[in-house]
């Protein structure tokens, strides 16, 4: 199973973000999601919200993310995927944004507030630049709807583990296994599970059901203290790497 960690771009600054991308890449990440800080992230729980607020509070601007990613993407083999609100994409301009993303080395986009129904034109645009637009399926998505969403999907499928916002939770929802089994019959794309995952045991439970484990808040949580205490950088990096290795190990033994 693939280990897919998430990092907020620019928390506490882009130099740390790019350093962590390299660290996560060597710690066994198979794909890294880069969150673009947004002022009104409806799908995010308190950890990622605060992380976005810190990055924006440090006056991060979207074009700077592309510059930083452009530099680091060349150094690693791990694919990078942008997690970005449609509010940002539309404001920059759909075409301009996708072009920037492609040029800076992103392999795909996850746009959590652009549901399948609204995505047709945008999907074509993303595809024409050689990127994947990752589709999301939720526990509340009926099977006929997921079939429709997955018809034009590419890359992998982002399976939302719980109805709710991002953030660590105990255990896994009992319906998750059924949802993944249904999705298997609808697509040949890899299924990656996200929202609520933080522990190696949870990742192990996905064995045989999913092809990827997405871990966001549990990674981002480590960044909290860096804004007020930049001297802790090496501590934080080593703790984060250690944590990432534990999840990577659970994922990679769960074939």
């Amino acid at each position, binding site marked *: 199973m693939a280990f897919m960690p998430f990092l907020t771009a620019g928390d506490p600054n882009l130099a740390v973000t790019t350093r962590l991308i390299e660290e996560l890449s060597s710690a066994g990440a198979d794909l890294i999601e880069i969150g673009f800080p*947004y*002022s*009104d*992230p*409806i*799908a*995010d*729980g308190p950890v990622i*919200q605060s992380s976005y*607020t810190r990055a*924006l509070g440090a006056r991060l*601007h*979207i074009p700077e993310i592309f510059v930083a990613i452009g530099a680091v993407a060349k150094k690693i083999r791990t694919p990078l995927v942008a997690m970005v*609100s*449609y*509010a*940002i*994409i*539309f*404001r*920059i301009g*759909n075409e301009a944004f996708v072009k920037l993303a492609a040029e800076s080395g992103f392999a795909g986009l996850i746009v*959590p*507030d*652009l*549901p*399948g*129904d*609204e995505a047709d*034109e*945008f999907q074509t645009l993303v595809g024409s630049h050689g990127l994947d637009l990752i589709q*999301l*399926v*939720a*526990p*509340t*998505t*009926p099977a006929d*709807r997921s079939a429709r*969403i997955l018809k034009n999907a590419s890359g992998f499928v982002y399976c*939302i583990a*719980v*109805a*709710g*916002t991002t953030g660590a939770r105990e255990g896994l929802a009992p319906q998750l296994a059924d949802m993944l089994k249904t999705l298997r019959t609808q697509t040949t794309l890899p299924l990656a599970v996200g929202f609520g995952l933080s522990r190696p045991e949870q990742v192990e439970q996905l064995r045989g059901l999913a092809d990827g484990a997405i871990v966001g808040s549990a990674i981002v949580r480590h960044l909290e203290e860096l804004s007020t205490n930049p001297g802790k950088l090496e501590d934080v990096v080593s703790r984060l790497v250690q944590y990432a290795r534990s999840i990577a190990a659970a994922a990679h033994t769960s074939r």
Partner: protein
Amino acid sequence: MSSTAVTAGKASSNVPDAAGRFGEFGRRFVPETLMHALEELTVEYARAKADPEFNRRLNELLRTFVGRPNPLYFAERLTEMCGGAQIYFKREDLNHTGAHKINNTMGQALLTMRMGKKRVIAETGAGQHGVATATACARFGLPCVVYMGEEDIRRQKLNVFIMRTMGAEVRPVTSGSRTLRDAINEAMRDWMSSVEDTHYILGSVVGPHPFPMIVRDFQSVIGREAREQSLETIGRLPDEVVACVGGGSNSAGMFYPFVDDAGVELTGVEAGGRGDKPGEHASTLTYGTKGVLHGSYSYVLQDPDGQTMDVHSISAGLDYPGVGPEHSYWRDTGRVNYVNIRDQHALDTVQLVARTEGILPALESSHAIAYAMDRARQRKPNEVIVVCLSGRGDKDVNEVARLTGQDL
């Protein structure tokens, strides 16, 4: 996003389409988790709308519980003072709970029960929608949680007390600007995890489809009554209809029944705040750009990166960086003219209307009245302006006292 939509040209009242589009505006930009609930709501609302029993029950509640129809009132002394067009007030302030918000919450509470949902959540800015939701929920025995920004809780203590008395739980929101925008974010997040058994009673014509349509429809009782009352009282339609615009629910309800009446000028009044620089006002349709906020494509006050900007208004109900998609449609088709009124002017108008007419308007509504007075001065005495007096000012007394240096 399609850019082939209707801009300049005649505004249709036959909107939105099945995808929730008002011209190019509206639609649904929300996480997948909410999509099924929005589809269900769309289907169930269409059924309810066509169901005579649902409409009979709603109309009965509006009559016996809300106190409709409320009057169209000739503001005689204000008219004399301005020395121009006649000013009429549509008295939404006389509704139960003191504002137009209850028109929508009664309708959506009935929808909640029709869908078999067991719990209600809502956001509130000025607290009027929170009170109206708490009231509707108390009336039907539905548990209710209201999200309210910490800054607004400070400004609107009376309404917080009323909500709690009605049995609602008021949850303070401490993220971002701690106002309406953040309260909507938190309500949406609650809904992400509670969507199976909870209905979100959104209070304005904002958010993803079908909310802008549902709220407009329930609020259109304002414009329908005002239109009929104009024909009865003055024997014709008014020359101009004026209403304040934050998210835009009282104005959408007031304007919608007049959209096809080409001779009636429609004017929406936004919060001009302290000035015209970013952060000093909440005039989305004057200074905003097209973008996505809270699940809908509309005009937004945003920076070049698409980050929502902080806004300011003396009035908590207008303190919002977005606006309903139908207003954006009306703006771009030229059907409605949008202007703004500054804080001080609105504050002065509260006091002026209280002394001249014996009516204490809400700070929100006084933005509309202030503009209507300016317009009346430019118009002839045989012309008529109808203003939506969307709510009463009781909730604002602490804030007005503070701002005018008085003790309460």
